């Protein structure tokens, strides 16, 4: 199986006068269609690592390859295009646009890439919202939904452009244990149904153990990397 994502010698240092080394010489790759979790203490650098994987942040040194393309030489607009087409993000906070309805939020990545939505896109958005259990609240304003619904809307949005991989940073961090399990089952189903690669940050070992691979980050380094 090919690698969808590969990180070579990634180092990240914050600050100019007072330097804080967050990541040290990270080498890791992820295969297409894999379902991995990244765990670690708070402040261990796992979120920074995920942001670098998703081209939202730049490494201080090292290279990131997405689907074989080295990203450091790409322009900001080219990176934006990669994020739009190849990567879906799910954050701890849902980050929905409060000015738009749930379905409009789900359709936003498509609108960013194509300008206007066509019937096919709307059908796909509806299908994804049904899969994520949002059929009833499609036309609700993003702010008028429960926390679980908002997070599931964010997942549907991340899936809309059929991305190669979904990067999720504590996607259930704000949810109760019941909703957490539902969301994980949902992500797993999507992984199996669409073959989407998942890289999920969590601090919950129980949840992490549901993944095929567990990577533990400690003090900015890979401490454990277990394939199941």
């Amino acid at each position, binding site marked *: 199986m090919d690698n969808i994502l590969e990180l070579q010698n990634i180092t990240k240092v914050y600050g100019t006068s007072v330097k804080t080394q967050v990541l040290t010489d990270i080498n890791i790759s992820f295969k297409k269609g894999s379902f991995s979790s990244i765990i670690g203490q708070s402040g261990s650098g796992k*979120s920074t690592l995920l942001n670098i994987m*998703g081209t939202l942040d730049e490494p201080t040194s090292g290279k990131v390859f997405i689907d074989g393309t080295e990203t450091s030489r790409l322009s900001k607009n080219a990176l934006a295009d*990669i994020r*739009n087409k190849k990567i879906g993000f799910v954050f*701890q906070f849902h*980050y*929905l*646009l409060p*000015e738009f309805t749930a379905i409009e939020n789900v359709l936003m990545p498509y609108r*960013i890439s194509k300008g206007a939505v066509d019937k096919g896109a709307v059908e796909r958005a509806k299908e994804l919202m049904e899969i994520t259990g949002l059929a009833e609240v499609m036309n609700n304003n993003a702010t008028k939904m429960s926390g679980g619904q908002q997070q599931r809307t964010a997942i549907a949005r991340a899936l809309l452009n059929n991305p190669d991989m979904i990067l999720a940073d504590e996607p259930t961090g704000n949810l109760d244990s019941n909703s957490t399990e539902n969301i994980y089952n949902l992500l797993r189903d999507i992984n199996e149904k669409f073959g989407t690669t998942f890289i999920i940050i969590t601090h919950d070992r129980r949840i992490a153990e549901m993944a095929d691979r567990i990577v533990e980050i400690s003090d900015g380094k890979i401490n454990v990397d277990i394939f199941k």
Partner: protein
Amino acid sequence: MKLSFQIAKRFLRSNLTQTIIIILGIGIGVSVQIFIGLLIGGLQNSLVETTIGNSSQITVSAEEEEGLISKYEPIIKDIESADNRIEFVSPVLDNPSFLATDEKNQSLLVRGMEKAGANSIYSLSEYITEGSFEKGENKVLLGIALKEEYDLQKDDMINLITPDKRTVECKVSGFFDLQVASINESWCITTLENAQEIFGTGDEISSIEMQMYDENVFEADEAATKITKKLDDDSIVVTDWKTENQSLLSGLRGQSISSLMIQIFVMISVVLGISSILAITVMQKSRQIGILKAMGINNGKASLIFLTEGLILGVFGAIAGVLMGLGLSYAFSTFALNADGTPVVDLYIDKGFIALSGCIAVAACLIASLIPARRSSKLNPIDIIRNN
């Protein structure tokens, strides 16, 4: 473009009160600009109208003092063909004389003019208070001040003493009030034929008077130059109101400049105001811009959101401003009245100026939104994600 427009629209709608306040702010700036522009325009128009509206704007007369022009018909034809900005042309014969009364001799300027010319240049028919401008032997109109001073009545007979000391009896056919004291007490108006008869000049005139079309009033000097060239006659001089009213012109220029300065400063304050408000909007919406950027919106489209906001605010602000400006102008002309009930300044609607003010407001809003647009393009999504 469509996406940026829709996001901008939603952003503005999501905080409707703030949007309305911004639009009102722009509107007030534009309305002040329009109100001042129209007020000064109206003021200048009425000043020009009062000063030269009822007088000759270009005058052709003989070079020699008190000289007469004979064979004036071809000259009038030449003038009419020289410049198409001239609306009326009227031959006039002016002669000094005395009104002989029992107590004293009052000096008079007897002005012989054609009825059409008198009505078009001096709007005489509007100012006749009693009687009418009649054709007929030795019938004359007198200024209203003479009626009061010498207790004259319509159809009274008066004696005029000509410069060659002849006394000619004339009949008063009426009185006029041209609203200028010096004219009301010294002018005696009669037909051109009568004047030629009274003073025995034959078919000669002393000057040819002209008025331009309203929109060309300020081009009188150019027209005068063209007429001089066309006539090409050293015995004739052409004068125009602009050359003879330099102080009025410089006053009008000063007024125009000060009006323009006020408008420019109002516009600058509008631009600065909008710019700072839109900059705050970028901060308010930075989370949303960060999310959109994480989802892959490029910097150009992110900037376009705020340019579009500027455009929408500018268009609505300009519409509000035009309506408020017209309302203010209308209210001013309705409620600011002279003692006789006429408006202090007549309502003057200059469609071109209003349209230009609206366009300037829209352009100013677009310029004002450049700074926030730039800030939005520079916003890094990771700052939003990291600092949630």
